[in-house]
């Protein structure tokens, strides 16, 4: 069994195009301003938090593969390059990099545009749009930009599937199939996704972006953060509802500690948050709830939780951070990141 470390973090969010911007808004704790999206045929606008344009045009946008790519690809590439930057600076460019991109809704912008064109007249629907509608497009584009991706998977699920992605990356590293692995969670917004969220979780504010963790086996490449544990996937069913699954996940993550951070998925939707809040009701330590500041970013929000947790440990604000992901319709999974080499690291590894 190998030890798995975090070699870098990346984030694109409504706070901006890097982890520092994410950290700043989370430290302030104030919900970001809400914008609106027009919904065709209905005068009630939909609340969203959009990703601002980058302050300077990122160099990667000049890559020919990104010319027509959708926003979600830009977010994936932005977060992925930031997470891999330190590793790429100090390692052989030929190192074998794995890539796991996790999505819930995926490329909704181009899917809606293309289907809209199809309904109007399929004979003139644009062939430029269709390839960008597939879930695998963002991973493909990032692989082309990086040039050394040797193994890639796109995983679809509810936000807890981001930790399935982390577990897959860890498995590839343990099997020595890759030297490092980027795991990215991403989403983009459009009116139809905001409309769907309005139907399902009315108080929530949809947002978009990406979060990325670069995993490695080599301690020298580490930011000082180690992956200690990922719980079982507690899948929902008629017999195993969200409440029970969330409690089972929480039970696997250990006890209270004032030195440890809980990074949870609570937002502004009392109904959706109730099960997770119930599972962690006895938690007395510090708690961070990124969705309360950023909004409902689906898979991107799950990734931001992990990025924020790792960033807090890397910045030596906490010796460990627990991540709680109680997904909307699939499963509850938790994870624990610890300071590499600390006593708690060894303890948590049992």
């Amino acid at each position, binding site marked *: 069994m190998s030890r798995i470390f975090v070699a870098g973090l990346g984030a694109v969010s409504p706070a901006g195009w890097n982890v520092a911007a994410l950290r700043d808004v989370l430290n302030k704790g104030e919900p970001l301003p809400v914008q609106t999206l027009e*919904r065709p045929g209905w005068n009630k606008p939909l609340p969203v938090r959009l990703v601002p344009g980058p302050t300077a045009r990122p160099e990667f946008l000049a890559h020919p593969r990104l010319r027509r790519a959708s926003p979600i690809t830009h977010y994936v590439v932005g977060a992925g390059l930031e997470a891999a930057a330190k590793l790429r600076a100090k390692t052989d460019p030929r190192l074998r990099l794995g890539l796991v991109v996790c999505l819930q809704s995926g490329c909704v912008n181009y899917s809606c545009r293309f*289907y809209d064109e199809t309904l109007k007249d399929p004979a003139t629907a644009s062939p430029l749009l269709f390839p960008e509608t597939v879930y695998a497009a963002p991973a493909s584009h990032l*692989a082309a930009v990086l040039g050394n991706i040797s193994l890639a998977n796109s995983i679809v699920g509810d936000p807890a599937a981001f930790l*399935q992605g982390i*577990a897959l990356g860890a*498995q590839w590293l343990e099997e020595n199939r890759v030297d490092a692995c980027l795991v990215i969670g991403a989403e983009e917004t459009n009116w139809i996704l905001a409309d769907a969220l309005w*139907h399902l979780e009315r108080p929530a504010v949809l947002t978009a972006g990406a979060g990325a963790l670069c995993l490695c086996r080599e301690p020298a490449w580490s930011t000082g953060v180690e992956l200690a544990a990922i*719980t079982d996937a507690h*899948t929902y069913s008629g017999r195993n509802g969200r409440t029970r699954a969330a409690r089972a996940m929480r039970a696997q993550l250990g006890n209270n500690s004032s030195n440890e951070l809980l990074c949870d998925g609570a937002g502004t939707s009392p109904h959706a948050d109730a099960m997770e809040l119930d599972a962690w009701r006895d938690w007395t330590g510090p708690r961070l709830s990124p969705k309360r500041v950023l909004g409902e970013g689906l898979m991107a929000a799950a990734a931001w939780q992990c990025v924020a947790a790792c960033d807090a440990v890397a910045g030596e604000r906490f010796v460990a951070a627990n991540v709680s992901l109680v997904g909307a319709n*699939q499963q509850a999974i938790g994870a624990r990141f610890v300071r590499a080499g600390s006593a708690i690291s060894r303890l948590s590894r049992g």
Partner: protein
Amino acid sequence: MLFPTTSRPQTPPRVVITGAGIITALGRGWQPNAEGFRTGRTAFRPVSLFDVSRQRAKNAAEVNLPATLPPTALSAKQMTRLDRAASMLLLATREAWQQSGWEPSENLPMVLGTTAGGMSFGEAYFRQAVQTPRRHRHQPTRAIYYQPQVQGRMVLEALDCNGPVTIVSNACASGSNAIGHAWELIRYGQAERALTGGYDALTELVFSGFDSLQALSTTVCRPFDARRDGLALGEGAAVMALETLESARRRNAPILGELIGYGSSIDHHHLTQPHPQGDTTLAVMRQACAAAGVMPEEVDYINAHGTGTVLNDSSEAVAISHWAGQRAATLPVSSTKANIGHLLGAAGAVEAVICLMTLREQWLPPESMFETPDPACHFPIVQKPRDGRVNVVLSNSFGFGGVNASLIMRRWV
């Protein structure tokens, strides 16, 4: 725990197949499909699911779904929430499950590949939102049940089971990658058994997409034929019950075949076009062989990705010819997309079950519409129905985005 895993075996266990389910335009279940593939029957007909009057292509391989689904552990209300794709997944899973003889479990992993999941619900959501924006009826249900992880979870519930669901969406390699991932879960001790496969239904968006790319044949789908002019779309599902050999032997389960190798990588060349020399295809075939411990000389049949597009087939032909070397001259190859079309996220899984049929029944599936070989093919295409000695088979799958996968299976005697 998903990490760290504590039960990793010193030597990876052998993984066998104890159940297989399939549904395609050739029929529902093993028997009608085996008969169809053995004789080279094609299953294309005019598209009836949506309007194609303004599309270049008019035909596809549509599945005949039964008027009612068989009773399961799902309630009648839950059954109404299965769309066309989920219904096919349920039928294929149920067949594999029944054949495996497994008991219901609360920890049965399911690994599925799909490109579109419940896209028909997504399309209905979009149409209603645009055409009658103030009408909200059914929209919340569609927003939940179009998601593939929900469909996978419901199918597990239909079997009175629960367990972790993983959805792999690597475009048209999804089915093979899902099976490969399930194989790895078992080999590395994370599960003793798993249900795995792929599914996709025909949808208007996807049909229009391939038509807009002018990738659809306006004549007949003829993979590797010098006169090929594109692919044909189909729909379906296939699911396999995988378990360790030890588990199968412990319960005296009939074994259908053994999954012995898997390779996967990503082609950086282009979003939709393969590298002309098939570099990544070659790499994954070699990876799969290395994992299986077999040489090209030992492979008795290749079920090619073989879409029927000019670029895919020439690239794959170069890769197979290079990989096989001298063996290429006598290595039988065919693409069953000539019979049932391209099943996208289901393709790799359906083709894996077809490979299992060739191993079980010792025949090779012909491409009955094939006439003139592409010059890049240095291997014979199976054109006529024929029996053969089939001990080891290899199945290729590639997808938009460049993910390539190969699976290798061995006959169980």
